[in-house]
């Protein structure tokens, strides 16, 4: 994975010093809150319901054991002993003090991390496939380009005061695990007929109040033109994105209002006037970065791992966990280990400092010192020998990290919601916990097969409920929390926005409603047909009838 050189190190140290100075000026009264707010947001510091919240960047969801250990230290020293992994592959701390923040940023800089641009109307963390560099279906690892874009977008002088936030996602596999179609810019790596690598450039996807699927503006952009072309898109957005209404300020609204064709024409005109120059520099930098993402020194192993097979045979719990939580690795004898941060009745995506340290140790010992954060709020150890998996699992069990529900109904994605967030209209975590308890028996979850349940505590959709197979949106009706259910969303390469099923439910009614939906699916599915496919075949009607049938 990427390692800082002296330039990168100097950059984060200077940025930290800059923020220290800004915070001091704020506390002295030399800056008003209106003036300070964009500055602190561009260093990841929010003011939330209970305290300041700091969102730390985990670029394209990749980190080392040492970095994870530092995140644990920060949780213990400056927060309340835990952190929350987010739907954009970052981590959040909920109980931060402004007066400590510069010290925290320095602690991050010390391990080649930062909180730069994790909030604010600027380009945010570039997210990607949490199985990058490991998945069998991958064409090429997208993370070198992710790192290139990270650097290019960091403290970009022209694009730091955009109409609104800007999110970029990239994928290097045909099965899109990065939700590129619901990002402001989505980039999909693919090859042309001659086998050259290029990028499909998609613009204007997003969730929130007005969910939209991105449109393609270029089918095949050569890699060397990426930075130049991104500049053209950003310039068009910066100039023409709406600034009169916060809820209509994303690039998706601009694309929708002027139309995809006109938008594309504006971008192409801008790009033609200011095309990518001296692209050898970008390509030299990309080549330099790519060296850090060379494949680890995998051993030559057999696909058959006898110790692993024996362990499955003799330990039913392990067999269950292995069946649900392992994903196929490109290299024989290895597996991708998915650690679910969704224990039964737990808070989705939260991990204690101690759990972070355990995962750091496991990464160093078993996964070439690399971890990933997925936008489903789970942690991945990407390169584990099958023969090591049983030992690793036993340590996960000791640390309460062995929930065998990866990708199943218990693997719920939920934003922090009204328990933490100043923007929320309803709580999301208790709903997740109630659903999780209802399906506590993993056998029941397995009977439902893979299904993505996403919960958002407000219309800003940080829980990504629009692209949940089952989406739950928490709203406020006359001071009471109530929940709307959507079905059929997907963040894959066949992306779709979920449809609202009908009137909302009180909190205590939601778990039964989910059960009704899942049981309806089981009743009507074809052999081997997963939930999303069945919904797309059947449509909402049978689910509506089951949910709203008059008794």
């Amino acid at each position, binding site marked *: 994975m990427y390692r800082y050189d002296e330039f990168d190190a100097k950059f984060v140290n200077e940025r930290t010093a800059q923020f220290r100075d800004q915070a001091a000026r704020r506390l002295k009264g030399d800056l008003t*809150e209106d003036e300070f707010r964009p500055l602190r947001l561009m260093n990841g510091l929010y003011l939330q319901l*209970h*305290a300041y919240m700091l969102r730390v960047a985990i670029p394209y969801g990749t980190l080392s054991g040492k970095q994870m250990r530092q995140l644990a230290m920060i949780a213990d020293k400056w927060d309340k002993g835990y952190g929350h992994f987010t739907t954009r592959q970052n981590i959040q701390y909920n109980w931060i003090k402004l*007066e400590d923040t510069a010290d925290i940023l320095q602690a991050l800089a010390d391990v080649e991390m930062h909180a730069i641009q994790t909030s604010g109307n600027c380009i945010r963390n570039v997210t990607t496939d949490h199985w990058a560099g490991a998945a069998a279906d991958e064409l090429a690892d997208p993370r070198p380009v992710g790192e290139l874009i990270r650097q290019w977008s960091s403290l970009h002088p022209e694009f730091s005061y955009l109409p609104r936030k800007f999110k970029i996602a990239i994928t290097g596999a045909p099965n899109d695990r990065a939700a590129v179609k619901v990002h402001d810019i989505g980039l999909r790596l693919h090859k042309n007929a001659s086998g050259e690598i290029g990028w499909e450039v998609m613009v204007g996807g997003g969730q929130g109040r007005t969910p939209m699927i991105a449109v393609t503006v270029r089918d095949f952009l050569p890699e060397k033109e990426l930075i130049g072309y991104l500049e053209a898109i950003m310039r068009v957005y910066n100039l023409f994105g709406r600034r009169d209404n916060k809820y209509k300020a994303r690039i998706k609204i601009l694309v929708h209002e002027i139309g995809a064709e006109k938008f594309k024409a504006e971008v192409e005109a801008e790009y033609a006037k200011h095309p990518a120059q001296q692209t050898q520099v970008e390509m030299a930098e990309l080549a330099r970065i790519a060296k850090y993402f060379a494949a680890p020194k995998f051993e030559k192993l057999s696909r058959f791992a006898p110790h692993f097979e024996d362990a499955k045979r003799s330990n039913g719990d392990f067999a269950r966990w292995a069946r649900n939580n392992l994903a196929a690795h490109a290299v024989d004898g290895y597996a991708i280990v998915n650690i679910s941060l969704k224990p039964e009745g737990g808070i989705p995506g939260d991990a204690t400092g101690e759990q972070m340290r355990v995962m750091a140790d496991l990464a160093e010992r078993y996964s070439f010192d690399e971890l990933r954060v997925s936008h489903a709020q789970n942690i991945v150890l990407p390169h584990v020998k099958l023969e090591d998996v049983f030992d690793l699992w036993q340590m996960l069990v000791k640390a309460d990290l062995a929930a065998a529900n990866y990708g199943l109904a218990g693997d719920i994605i939920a934003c922090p919601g*009204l*328990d933490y967030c100043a923007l*929320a209209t309803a*709580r999301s975590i208790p709903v997740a916990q109630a659903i999780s308890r209802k399906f506590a028996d993993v056998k029941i979850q397995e009977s439902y097969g893979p299904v993505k349940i996403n919960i958002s505590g407000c219309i800003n959709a940080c829980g990504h409920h629009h692209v949940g197979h089952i989406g739950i949106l928490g709203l406020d009706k006359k001071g009471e929390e109530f929940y709307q259910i959507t079905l059929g969303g997907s963040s894959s390469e066949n992306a779709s926005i979920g449809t609202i099923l009908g009137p909302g439910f009180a*909190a205590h009614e939601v778990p039964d409603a989910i059960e009704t939906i899942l049981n309806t699916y089981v009743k009507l599915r074809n052999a081997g047909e997963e939930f999303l496919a069945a919904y797309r075949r059947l449509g909402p009607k049978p689910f509506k009838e089951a949910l709203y049938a008059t008794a």
Partner: protein
Amino acid sequence: MSTVEKGQVMTANRLRDGDVVFLTRAGAWSEKIDDAVLALEPQAAAALEVRAAADVTSTLVTGPYLFDATRVDGKIRADHIRERIRTLGPSVRLDLGKQAEGTAGAFQAVEV
């Protein structure tokens, strides 16, 4: 017979550490909701806004706002669940926030 009064409480975050605080009758900011002054009339609420604005300028607090609350026999409870959570702490972590620090006031648990 209980005395029930309805009014508004002024809350903010202390600038330097982000702690949630409430404006008291004496014009200081307390971490405890029960110390807060309950503005029973619009004039009193407006006076709280003036006081809070001054404390924003002096960099003591940030983000002040009024919220509806009810006082029963001297104990204050926020009317809306959002402020009840703000007053108590996360409903999903009863070991965190004011509810764990003993500053939550008389009404302890947020209903599920």
